[in-house]
């Protein structure tokens, strides 16, 4: 049989597959979870991913951008799967989840840090569950023991930190995946345009103020870049990432991806931190 490269798109997902005689590689993008940001497009080492702004209908809110994968370019490496802050991508082989760059430690997994100290939870408190925009938290009360169980779907959590903020008892500790900054150049921002506001996955981060210009509240921003994808004016929206919270890794592919997601300076910083940490460890070993 001939090797087939296929792409199928439904309203719920996009599936790109490479079918060989005994192996079927499959990359699935969950369209419900995907917010149309730019992270996977930037990170893909083969530039196989494109993100397209949706078409605007008069008077309606701009829909989220569409992510498309070129089935002839995708090599099923798994970088996009590891980097997506919303956990929208799944990679499998013959139906079983399999991310080669993670298995071979060629790329790190971004850390969706959400830790809950359930002992601090009041019995009838549902604040976090109500607060989570992505419906990732489920609070259950074990009637017998009175124990509160908080389950968080961490793999899809972009660490917006709303739940941490809203928790009355400070029981939740989170850490942003991406640290960065985002700013609007007021002169360039076209009046009355609210494309970025429409697509931002975290309501409240971007808002249209009275004078028709966009205002930013960075507190809950995850620096995904969905806003930058749709901004019609070059340079009106300035987004920068400084660091990424990820599992430890020693990989040229990661250095390149970080350079594209953040800046060269950040890569140098990270490498330097890593090497100084290594020195520290070596010294510790020697003298302990």
């Amino acid at each position: 049989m001939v090797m087939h490269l296929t792409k199928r798109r439904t309203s719920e997902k996009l599936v790109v597959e490479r079918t060989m005689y005994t192996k079927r590689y499959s990359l699935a993008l969950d369209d419900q979870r995907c917010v149309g940001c730019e992270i996977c497009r930037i990170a893909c080492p083969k530039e196989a991913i494109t993100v397209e702004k949706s078409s605007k209908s008069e008077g309606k809110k701009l829909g989220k951008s569409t992510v498309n994968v070129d089935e002839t370019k995708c090599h099923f490496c798994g970088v996009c799967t590891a980097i997506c802050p919303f956990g929208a991508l799944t990679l499998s082989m013959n139906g079983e989840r399999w991310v080669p760059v993670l298995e071979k430690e060629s790329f790190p997994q971004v850390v969706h840090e959400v830790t809950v100290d359930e002992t601090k939870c009041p019995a009838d408190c549902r604040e976090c569950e109500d607060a989570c925009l992505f419906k990732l938290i489920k609070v259950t009360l074990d009637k017998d023991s009175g124990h509160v169980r908080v389950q968080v779907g961490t793999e899809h959590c972009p660490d917006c930190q709303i739940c941490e903020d809203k928790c009355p008892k400070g029981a939740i500790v989170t850490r942003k995946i991406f640290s960065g900054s985002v700013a609007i150049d007021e002169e360039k921002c076209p009046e009355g345009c609210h494309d970025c506001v429409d697509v931002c996955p975290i309501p409240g981060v971007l808002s249209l103020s009275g004078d028709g210009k966009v205002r930013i509240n960075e507190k809950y921003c995850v620096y995904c870049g969905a806003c930058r994808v749709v901004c019609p004016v070059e340079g009106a929206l300035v987004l920068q990432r400084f660091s990424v919270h990820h599992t430890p890794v020693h990989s040229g592919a990661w250095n390149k991806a970080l350079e594209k997601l953040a800046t060269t300076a950040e890569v140098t910083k990270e490498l330097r931190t890593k090497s100084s940490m290594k020195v520290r460890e070596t010294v510790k070993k020697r003298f302990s």
Partner: protein
Amino acid sequence: MSQNLRIGVFVCHCGLNIAGTVDVEAITEYAKTLPDVVYAVHNRYTCSDPGQEEIRKAIKENGLNRVVVAACSPRMHEFTFRRTVSEAGLNPYLFEMANIREHCSWCHPSKPEEATQKAKEIVKIAVAKARLLGPLQPIEVPVTNKALVLGGGIAGMNAALDLAEMGFKVYLVEKKESIGGHMAQLDKTFPTLDCSICIEGPKMVDVSRHPNIEIFSFTDIVSVEGFVGNFRVKLKKRPRFVKEENCTGCGECRDVCPIELPNEWDMNMGVRKAISVPFDQAVPLIYSINKDYCIECFKCVDACGAREAIDLSQEPKETEVEVGTIIVATGYDIYQPEEGNVYGYGKYSNVLTSLEFERLILAAGPTNGHVIRASNGKQPKVVALVQCVGSRDVDKYPYCSGFCCMYTLKHAVQLKEHYGRDVEVYVFYIDMRTNFKGYEEFYTRAREMGVNFVRGRVSNVFETPQNNLVIRAEDTLLGEPIELEAEMVVLATAAKACADAGEVSRVLNVTRGMDGFFMESHPKLKPLDTAVDGIFLAGACQGPKDIPYSVSQGSGAAARAATVLSKPTVKIEPIVAVVDPQKCRNTKVKCGICATKCPYSAIHVEPNKPADVVAAKCHGCGVCVAECPVDAIAQMHFTDAQILAQISAALEDNPEGKILGICCNWCSYAGADLAGTSRFEYPTNIRIVRVMCSGRVDRDFVLEAFRRGAGMVLVGACHLPYDCHYIDGNWKMKVRMESLSTMLQKLGLTADRFRVEYVSAAEGVKFAQVVKDMAERLSELGKDKVKAENERLKPYIDRILDRKAK
């Protein structure tokens, strides 16, 4: 030549072959009357020892400086007498033969007087040429005693090993990462069912270890310059991104690489990593990185550690080697029917090609040797093997691919050996071609194992919802249409010329036949030579063939190459083209016509310089000589002056009643010889002038013939499209003569007074018939009409030829 001409004529009786019909004494006496002939004698058997001795004595005693032997065809004994003459101290190219046997006594047995007259004129023609002959020295070029073998498959490896064992240095150039070719992809080989890589592996290792063989793997051939004994070849090594000297082939890099990509060597059924070898027994065992897939995570660099073999900045490397001969062993490709719906291949998941099936049944393949269906991973219960997919097909490849019947039988036998009664095997064939040692017995074995054979072509294959395949065919032995539901279909697809055969053909200047495979010099007697001296063929690149045939050709090509390499120099016949730099037009205007017409690309033309003929590449066809608009090139031993002298001599007496024939040495002249040998009688009107190739026939020859009053002119050539000994000299002649004919007819020439006929060396009958027709027509036209037409043409011809003479 200012020297005093002293021509000796020796007329042979050839027993009664000549003397029985023509009056040899009269001919000898006549010869004495010709100007510059100082000695003429007749002899019973001139080619015999005493006969040759007589010639040698005569040369010495009479100070002869030109020799004419009137006897059989020069195709018979020119070589013999040239040797005789050189033994007497005379340059062998000062010798000419007059063909009074095949072209005279044998074909005019019932007309002895006319034959004698014709024989006299034939001698006159030969003497006319002999007067203008000049001494020639064979060109000797030194030989680089190294060889280049292009292609590291089974044929190429054998050629390389044989040459290396003979003591010659061999460069083995292979475009893929590993040598081994298609044979390394096979599981078992017919008819012994030996494991293929088991028998080839040791050979591959031998090649890598031999001190006389240097392997250039992952290397392409960029350009070839030079000629036999002296080729300069530029090679370009593609970057592996791994340093060959440092890589130990341990494979630790492969283990840590995350990227899997389809393995072309595995017919895209299996995978390889971004850093890998194509298969585990690769020679040389050096890894390479596929940069298209590599994400540059550098895990391999870490794993390689202190060996430091990985270098992602590697660039392609160019080298130049000097060799004396080149052996082309580039092999074949398999037809992958990816266009349209060829029995559902590409559409239905359970239809495979034979090479894909081979990879499936191989123990080291993607399924570890289990034959399973792609659709559900289960073993098929009914397997259909379809023959001649793409082969023997007027719409695709009209030839037979040769080895498919045998490998299909092998697959059938393997299926039966693996699964016994659990699998039904059907073979749909047109003919079963099992014609070499052990092959018919193998066919019997397959039949005895219960393989079913259906003689009929498959017309249609379509898929059922369970991914089974329904095959529609005709069982011609029963005379009924049949339908079979199979669970797997294997297509025995055609073997075709490599995709880059066109590029190799261009670089080496080696021609390809209509089927795309490289063309040999002569299909019967020179299957391994090409039209280019010093370049030989071996293996499937010359035509689809199985392994023993390829191996034999590899050894054969090595022997052919050794005939050049084992001598310090190689002699090249001096019948070559030579440019007169004073006359060459290219110094004044942009010309280069000769270079474009040369079938061997033997002429170099640089702007504002006279054209330069590379003598060692020149094969002596004379096409450039005829094409040159200012007659600046001459062909040694067949100069314009010599041929025009022959034409004048032929038409001196009674030109209106004569047919002037200019025939090419290899086909039409040989055909005329055959007419004589077969004793076909034809009229005596024709007088033949020999040229090496019909492409040599200048328009001036025809015009001069008519100016001298010829009744008819015949140009004899090899058949189109492929028979020309000089590749396509006859095509060039055709174009030239057609335009000339049109012009002459406009000037008033009756069309059939100037004819071009294609006569092969086997067509004696045709030659005789042509002459009969022409003689009949000539007598129909009558002498007066011919004379009148010639008179009308003369002023025009004079103008053309005189303008040229300026």
